[in-house]
């Protein structure tokens, strides 16, 4: 039962993924997906602060503070510091999703940001 999807997945992988097996397309879908905060009922998305285009600058939804583009292609400092990546994933996933992002989700998101 597991074998068939796995075989299909492995076959399709080169078509959609980076060499490390993560999917930029999945990352993009996740980035734009709407999550609902159970406490406030508020809708939250990565794109709410970062915009849907990682090459654009965003801004903090509450304070208005500008956020530099996430794509390393326009902002070479991005995604070079592992501690910083871990810190922001922890905060932002917990706030947006209500939980931490799984390693696969993180990998897909990074693949997406690096693909732009």
């Amino acid at each position, binding site marked *: 039962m597991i074998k068939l999807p796995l075989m299909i997945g492995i076959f399709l992988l080169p078509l959609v993924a980076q060499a490390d097996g993560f999917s930029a397309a999945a990352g993009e879908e996740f980035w734009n997906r709407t999550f609902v905060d159970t406490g406030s009922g508020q809708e939250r998305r990565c794109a709410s602060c970062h915009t849907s285009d990682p090459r654009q600058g965003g801004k903090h939804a*509450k*304070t208005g*503070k500008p956020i530099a583009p996430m794509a390393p292609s326009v902002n070479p400092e991005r995604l070079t510091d592992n501690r910083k990546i871990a*810190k922001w994933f922890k*905060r932002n996933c917990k706030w947006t999703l209500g939980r931490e992002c799984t390693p696969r989700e993180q990998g897909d998101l990074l693949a997406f940001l690096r693909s732009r």
Partner: protein
Amino acid sequence: MNKTATIILILLALALLGSAGLALSDDDQDSDDDDHRKRWSRDAKPGVVSALQQQYVDECGSCHFPYQPGFLPAQSWERVMSGLEDHFGENAELPAEDARQIGNYLRANAAGAVSDGVANRSLAALQGRQGPIRITETRFFRREHDDLTRRMVQDNPQVGSFSNCEACHTRAMEGSFDEHQVRIPGYGRWDD
């Protein structure tokens, strides 16, 4: 008394009156603030940024203005640091070591820990009470801003909130909140 002596006396009297005027002139800026020019906080030295200060400014200035530690007493900062998971509605969690270092920095430079114009006034206004953790809700802050309208702040698209210090306090990053340097976007200089 002869003429020369009278003239000299009159001139002397005028000179004294003139300088007395200068000495007594009202300057609502604390002399401490002068020393604080070009320094973000009491802890800072002009042109030299300590590693701990830089860490605080980088971490705690990534979403909002990095409020100088002197605005709140140590207990308020403790409460902030122990509630980072829900930091005024946002998640501001930090790795344990960084949180520890920043906590120490805040405690060491909090109102009551340092002798500083703004910090002392802020602490005094609390009058021994615990006080809020939101700087804009402290008595000191409210008093200083009580003559501002909503149109100038909350309903002003270029300001938005009292927590956005830099929008009006042009030298906030240099630790100066002197009202003579205030420019409210859309309204110009503050004329008290």
